[in-house]
């Protein structure tokens, strides 16, 4: 077959939504998956190399041509439109759904500490989240999850691509400290040596203040 990279380039250009590897393989009948992957890599590298205004971006499980962020000001000038931005309430709600999905409304509210009806509605309207089902508990609350459009809008390949929440890990650590702090001299079965020193520090702090 001729230049596979060039064929893939044509396929990606004409595809309305991010083109999946499977789809490319099915079009390029007879070409192995690894070969297609190599050709894709070559294509992506080629765009990077000549510092093109667009690049092949892996997004929402597929591949798509996207402009580079550096040129956004120019494209915006051409389009003459202002992008609809999300309120901070909606952003927070979206982050909680993204990291904790599948999740019900009350769980989101217990994290944010406020009613989230309005931001949920706006996120549903923008199709960034969707209803994935109903939880089998009294009241059968609606379960929410993010959509493919969410991945597309936030330039994510997949959910696992979400930046890790470092802080959350810290919370769990401190969580343990709290329990140990109050248990102090009591049953310290699951106490690890490192934690012991931590506990000590906090204890002294408490006394000092």
């Amino acid at each position, binding site marked *: 077959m001729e230049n596979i990279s060039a064929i893939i380039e044509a396929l990606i*250009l004409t595809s*309305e939504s991010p083109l999946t590897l499977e789809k490319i393989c099915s079009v390029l009948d007879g070409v192995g998956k690894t070969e297609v992957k190599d050709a894709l890599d070559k294509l992506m590298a080629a765009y990077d190399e000549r510092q093109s205004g667009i690049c092949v*971006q892996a997004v929402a499980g597929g591949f*798509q*041509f*996207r*402009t*580079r*962020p550096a040129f*956004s000001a120019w*494209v915006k000038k051409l*389009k003459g439109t202002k*992008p609809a*931005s*999300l309120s*901070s*309430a909606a*952003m*927070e709600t*979206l*982050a*909680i759904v*993204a*990291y904790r999905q599948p999740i019900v409304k009350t769980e989101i509210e*217990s*994290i*944010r*500490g*406020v*009613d989230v009806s309005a931001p949920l509605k706006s996120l549903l*309207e923008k199709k960034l989240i969707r209803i994935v089902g109903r939880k089998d508990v009294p009241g059968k609350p609606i379960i929410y999850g993010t959509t493919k459009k969410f991945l*597309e*809008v*936030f*330039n*994510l390949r997949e959910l696992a691509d*979400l*930046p890790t*929440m470092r*802080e*959350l890990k*810290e*919370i769990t650590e*401190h*969580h343990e400290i*709290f*329990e140990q*702090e*109050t*248990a102090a001299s*009591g049953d310290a079965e699951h106490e690890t040596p490192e934690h012991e020193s931590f506990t000590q520090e*906090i204890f002294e*702090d*408490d006394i000092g*203040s």
Partner: protein
Amino acid sequence: MNEEQTTDYAIKLDIFEGPLDLLLYLIKKNEIDIYNIPVALITQQYLEYLNIIKSLNLDLAGEYLVMASTLIHIKSRMLLPVPEEPSAEELDDDPRAQLVRQLLEYQAFKDAAAELAQRPILERDVFIRSTALPEEIKKTIADGDELVEVSIFELIEAFHHLVSRLDQKDLLEIDLEKLSLTDIINDVMERLTREKNLTFEELLGERKDRRRIVYTFLALLELIKLKMIKAYQTAAFGVIRIFPAVES
């Protein structure tokens, strides 16, 4: 509390996303260690804020009051002496632990949200090839593509779209045609039973003056409310089609 303080608080008010956000703000403002919150001080400041919100006649969400009572509860628990030999229940936790955990979790998600907002966002930082021409959408309808029910927002958007195009033309003609909503409703229903489905634009035909657009729009809303018609569109932004609710 004097005048000056009130103004200072008032400026900050609209930025709070809820009681947790307000607490985080107070903690930052007072440079307090989140693991060792002076509950008395924070409770006092928190209640001061609530008073300001009330004095400004703003709606005070119930959640703020729940938090106030939680703070007072914690404060009172911290005042109680710890018994020499605490029972399992009393040993339970620092009274503040639960709240601190909640604050930290909320802070973590606030940070995560900020980080998400920093990403190269579609239509803000990165762009894709412009998609879907109107002709193509019509073709998909012809191909019998699945139709999606539209919400009121999309109807209103379509309305705006029409009116905004109207403004581009010169309209000097003064139309004295008498319109009544009932007539238009009857007209719409009659045409729908005849033609099975119509777009908003087709419904208007050539008579695109502002009053007729408004009346037709109102007629559609009324008919949808009465469940006599249904509005659908293809998934892609688009042409909204009106169908009679009951197939005759």
